[in-house]
C-alpha cells in the first residue's frame, strides 16, 4: 500500500468558493493509502510547495495527490516541488478541481462531491504510479528551415548568426518566395526586390547557411533534438559548381512554357532561372518541357554552355541529415478565383488576381512594368478592385480574413495612379482592415490623395461588354445597385494554405487547422511552437500574414530553435510505452500503427522443452516514443502498456469515479 499525501488548494476562493475544502479533506483521509491530508490557500506559492515538501519528509510519503488547477497549468510546478523533496516527480498526480470543477459548477453541494470524486480517482491512480525517468536525448546542433521565402530566409539568418549550421530548403530553383514577386511593399512603398535581394544574397553567402534549392522534404523521422530528415535534391541537370549563371543557355533554349513566377502571364524557357535576381543564379532544366528529354534531340544548351555545366545524366539525390530543430516556413498560395463564376476570372484577360496585377508593375514583369490591359495593351482608365474574394466567406470560401488584401489593394491603387495618372480605382469591400503601424494612414492616403473610391458592397456579376467589363454590384450602405464599366478588374483572392500543406504536415508530424494552416501549440503563448517538440512555424504557413509579421515570427521561431540547439541534452518523454516480452505474442500490430516508428521487432531466445526457441516480440524505443498510447489499444493482450497512463491506472480511475455516485 502506498503512503499517499493529499494536498488541496483553495486557490483563494477560486476553488474554496465552490468546494468545501474541509469536507474534501475529510473524505481524502479515508481513501486507501492516504496517510496525510492538508490544505493551503495557494498551494502553488512557495509556502504552499514547502508544505508539500515538508509533509513528504515528515510523513514519509511516497505518493502525492494535489487537488488544484489543471495539470496543464501547474503539474510541472508540483512535480518539481516533489522532486526537490526527493520524490520521483512522476509519483505526483493532479486532481483538476478548479478548471474541471469549481469553475464550472456554481455551488458547494455540486462542487464538493465532484471534487472528492476527482481526488479519489487521482489517489487511486497515484497508488499505481511508478517512478519514471525521462530519457536524456542528444541535440544535433544543426537546424533545418523548410521554405526559402522571407520568413525562411530570416529564420535561417538568425539561427546562422547565433552560430549554428542551417540547411535552408527551398523547393523552387531559387529562394525569394512570394515576396520576390512583389513590386513594392506597403505601407512604405519600398521596392520589394531592393530589400529582399540583399537578404537572399546574405543567406546564400553566410558561412553557416547551406542553401538547398530545388529540394523537397522526403521523409522526417525522429524527434526533437534528433530529427532524421531525408531531403530530395531534384536533378537540375546543371552542374552548380561549373555553372557561372551567364544566361546563355536560357537565351538559346528554343522551347517555352508559361512562367510560374509570372503567374503564367508570360513564358519562360525550359532551362531557366525563375526571375532575374534568383539566388542561386543557377538554372534548372524543366524535364517535362525540355525537348531533349521529351524527344531526345536539341541539346542546344549543352552545346552552348561555355563551362559545360549541363549534365543530362544528373539524377535526383536523397540526402539524409540529422537536425536538432526544424522551422517550417512554407508560405501560402493564392486562391484560384475561378471557382467564383460571377467574377468571370479566367474568362477574360483583364480580370486579374492581386498577385497577377502586381506583376504588371514590375519592370521585368510580363508588360515590362507598363500597366496595360493584357487584352489590348492599352492603359486602364477604370480599375475595379474586389476585396474578400474567398475570404470571410462562410458559405463558399474561407471563414477567415486574409489580412493582407486591404493593404495590398490600397498599395496597388496608389501605384496605379502613379503609373497611369488618369486611372480611377474603385474598391468593393466588406470592411477595410488596416491594423498595423502606418497602415490606416496609408489606406487613407489612397482614398483621399489618390482618389480611390471605396464602396462597401459586393459584386454580383462581371461580364465583358464591348471592350470593357461591366461590374454589377450593390452598395450595401445605400442599398443602390452599382454598375461600373471597368477596363480592368483586380480580385483580392484569399490567401490559402499551400496545396501540399496537408501532406507536408503529415510528413513532418505537425497538425493543421481546418484550412490546412499549420497549428501553433498555443494561440497566444506558444505562437511559433507546434505540438511537436522541436518543430517551429513561421510566416504565412501558419495563417495569412504580411511581411513584417512574417519576419517577426521568423525571428521568434529562430530564437526558439536556437534555444533548443544551445542545450547540451534534452529530456525526452517519460510516459512512454513498454512491452512485456513474456506476454507479447509478436503480432506487431503495434508497429503498424505507431506514428513514430518507435516500435520494432526483436528476437528473443526462450526456453522450450529441453532447448530454446527463437521468438519475435515488439520493442519500444523510448527515445522515439511520444507516449500517445495508441499501440496499447491495438494490443489485445495488453502486453504493451503506457507508463504514466497504464491500463491499470486508467481502470483504477474508472473504478474510483464510479464508486461514488
Amino acid at each position, binding site marked *: 500500500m502506498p503512503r499517499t499525501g493529499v494536498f488541496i488548494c483553495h486557490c483563494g476562493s477560486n476553488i474554496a468558493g465552490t468546494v468545501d475544502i474541509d469536507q474534501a479533506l475529510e473524505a481524502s483521509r479515508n481513501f486507501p493509502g492516504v496517510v496525510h491530508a492538508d490544505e493551503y490557500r495557494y498551494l502553488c506559492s512557495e509556502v504552499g510547495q514547502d508544505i508539500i515538501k515538508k509533509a513528504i519528509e515528515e510523513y514519509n510519503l511516497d505518493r502525492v495527490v494535489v487537488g488544484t488547477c489543471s495539470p496543464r497549468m501547474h503539474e510541472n510546478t508540483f512535480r518539481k516541488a516533489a522532486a526537490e523533496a526527493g520524490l520521483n516527480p512522476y509519483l505526483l498526480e493532479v486532481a483538476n478541481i478548479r478548471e474541471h470543477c469549481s469553475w464550472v459548477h456554481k455551488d458547494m453541494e455540486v462542487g464538493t462531491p*465532484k471534487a472528492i470524486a476527482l481526488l479519489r*480517482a487521482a489517489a487511486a491512480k497515484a497508488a499505481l504510479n511508478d517512478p519514471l525517468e525521462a530519457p536524456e536525448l542528444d541535440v544535433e546542433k544543426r537546424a533545418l528551415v523548410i521554405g526559402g521565402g522571407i520568413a525562411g530566409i530570416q529564420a535561417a539568418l538568425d539561427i546562422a548568426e547565433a552560430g549554428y549550421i542551417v540547411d535552408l530548403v527551398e523547393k523552387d530553383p531559387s529562394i525569394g518566395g512570394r515576396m520576390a514577386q512583389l513590386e513594392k511593399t506597403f505601407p512604405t512603398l519600398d521596392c520589394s526586390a531592393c530589400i529582399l535581394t540583399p537578404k537572399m544574397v546574405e543567406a546564400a553567402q553566410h558561412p553557416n547557411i547551406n542553401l538547398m534549392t530545388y529540394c523537397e522534404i522526403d521523409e522526417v523521422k525522429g524527434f526533437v533534438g534528433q530529427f532524421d530528415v531525408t531531403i530530395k535534391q531534384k536533378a537540375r541537370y546543371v552542374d552548380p559548381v561549373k555553372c557561372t549563371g551567364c544566361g546563355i543557355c536560357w537565351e538559346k533554349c528554343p522551347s517555352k512554357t508559361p512562367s510560374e513566377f509570372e503567374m503564367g502571364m508570360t513564358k519562360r524557357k525550359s532551362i531557366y532561372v525563375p526571375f532575374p535576381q534568383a539566388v542561386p543564379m543557377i538554372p534548372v532544366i524543366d524535364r517535362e518541357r525540355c525537348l531533349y528529354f521529351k524527344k531526345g534531340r536539341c541539346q542546344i544548351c549543352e552545346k552552348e554552355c561555355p563551362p559545360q555545366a549541363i549534365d543530362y545524366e544528373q539524377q535526383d539525390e536523397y540526402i539524409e541529415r540529422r537536425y536538432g530543430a526544424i522551422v517550417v516556413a512554407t508560405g501560402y498560395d493564392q486562391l484560384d478565383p475561378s471557382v467564383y463564376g460571377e467574377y468571370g476570372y479566367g474568362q477574360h484577360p483583364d480580370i486579374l488576381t492581386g498577385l497577377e496585377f502586381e506583376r504588371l508593375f514590375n519592370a521585368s514583369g510580363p508588360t515590362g512594368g507598363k500597366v496595360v490591359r493584357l487584352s489590348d495593351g492599352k492603359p486602364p482608365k477604370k480599375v475595379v478592385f474586389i476585396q474578400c474574394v474567398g475570404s470571410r466567406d462562410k458559405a463558399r470560401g474561407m471563414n477567415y480574413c486574409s489580412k493582407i488584401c486591404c493593404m495590398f489593394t490600397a498599395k496597388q491603387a496608389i501605384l496605379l495612379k502613379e503609373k497611369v495618372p488618369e486611372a480611377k480605382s474603385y474598391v468593393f469591400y466588406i470592411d477595410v482592415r488596416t491594423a498595423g503601424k502606418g497602415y490606416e494612414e496609408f489606406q487613407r492616403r489612397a482614398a483621399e490623395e489618390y482618389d480611390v473610391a471605396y464602396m462597401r458592397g459586393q459584386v454580383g456579376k462581371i461580364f465583358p461588354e464591348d471592350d470593357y467589363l461591366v461590374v454589377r454590384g450593390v452598395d450595401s450602405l445605400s442599398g443602390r445597385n452599382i454598375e461600373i464599366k471597368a477596363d480592368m478588374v483586380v480580385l483580392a483572392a484569399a490567401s490559402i494554405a499551400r496545396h501540399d500543406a496537408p501532406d507536408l504536415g503529415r510528413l513532418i508530424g505537425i*497538425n493543421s487547422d481546418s484550412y490546412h494552416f499549420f497549428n501553433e501549440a498555443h494561440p497566444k503563448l506558444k505562437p511559433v511552437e507546434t505540438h511537436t517538440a522541436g518543430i517551429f512555424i513561421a510566416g504565412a504557413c501558419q495563417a495569412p500574414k504580411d511581411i513584417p509579421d512574417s519576419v517577426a515570427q521568423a525571428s521568434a521561431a529562430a530564437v526558439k530553435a536556437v534555444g533548443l540547439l544551445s542545450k547540451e541534452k534534452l529530456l525526452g518523454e517519460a510516459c512512454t510505452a513498454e512491452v512485456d516480452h513474456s506476454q507479447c505474442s509478436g503480432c506487431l500490430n503495434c508497429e503498424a500503427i505507431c506514428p513514430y516508428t518507435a516500435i520494432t521487432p526483436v528476437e528473443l531466445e526462450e526456453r522450450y522443452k529441453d532447448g530454446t526457441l527463437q521468438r519475435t516480440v515488439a520493442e519500444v524505443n523510448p527515445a522515439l516514443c511520444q507516449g500517445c498510447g495508441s499501440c496499447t*489499444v491495438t494490443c489485445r493482450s495488453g502486453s504493451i502498456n503506457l507508463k504514466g497512463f497504464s491500463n491499470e491506472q*486508467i481502470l483504477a480511475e*474508472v473504478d474510483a469515479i464510479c*464508486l461514488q455516485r
Partner: protein
Amino acid sequence: MSAALNDNTAGWEPLIVSFCCNWCSYAGGDLAGTSRMTYPANVKVIRVPCSGRINPMFVLRAFQRGADGVLVAGCHPGDCHYTSGNYQSRRRLSAFKRLVEFAGFEPERFEVRWISSSEGDKFAEEMTEMTEKIKALGPNGKMRDARWQSVI
C-alpha cells in the same frame, strides 16, 4: 445505493465518465473552466494522452461499474497531437460503438466527440447535452454489475 438504479425519478443523477485527450479536449475543458462556463457535475473527466489511448475495455468497465453514459473526446480529425491517434480511434470506436449498440445499448450511452483546445464552449455544450440525453434515458442497467455498490 443500488436502489438508485431502480428509481428513475427521485433524486437520481446520471454518472457520466468522459475520457478526454490531453491536448485538445481536456484543454477545451480547461478553457470552459477558465471562461467560467457551466455544465453539469455529472460528468467526470479522465485525462488520457490521446483519444487513441482509449481502449474500448475502459468504456465497458465504466458501464460495469455503473456509468450511465460514456463520452470519449479527442482532437478534431487532422489535429491530433500525435498525428494519427484520433484517426485510429475513429475507426476503433466507430466499430465499437456499433457493437455496443448491437448489444442493446442506446446510441446515446456511448458517444465520441471531437473538441479542440479552443472550444471551451463546445466542451461545455457537449457535456451538457450528454447529461441531458442520459437524464432523459434514465439509469443504465445494462452491463451494470450491481455488486460494485452492493457493499458500501
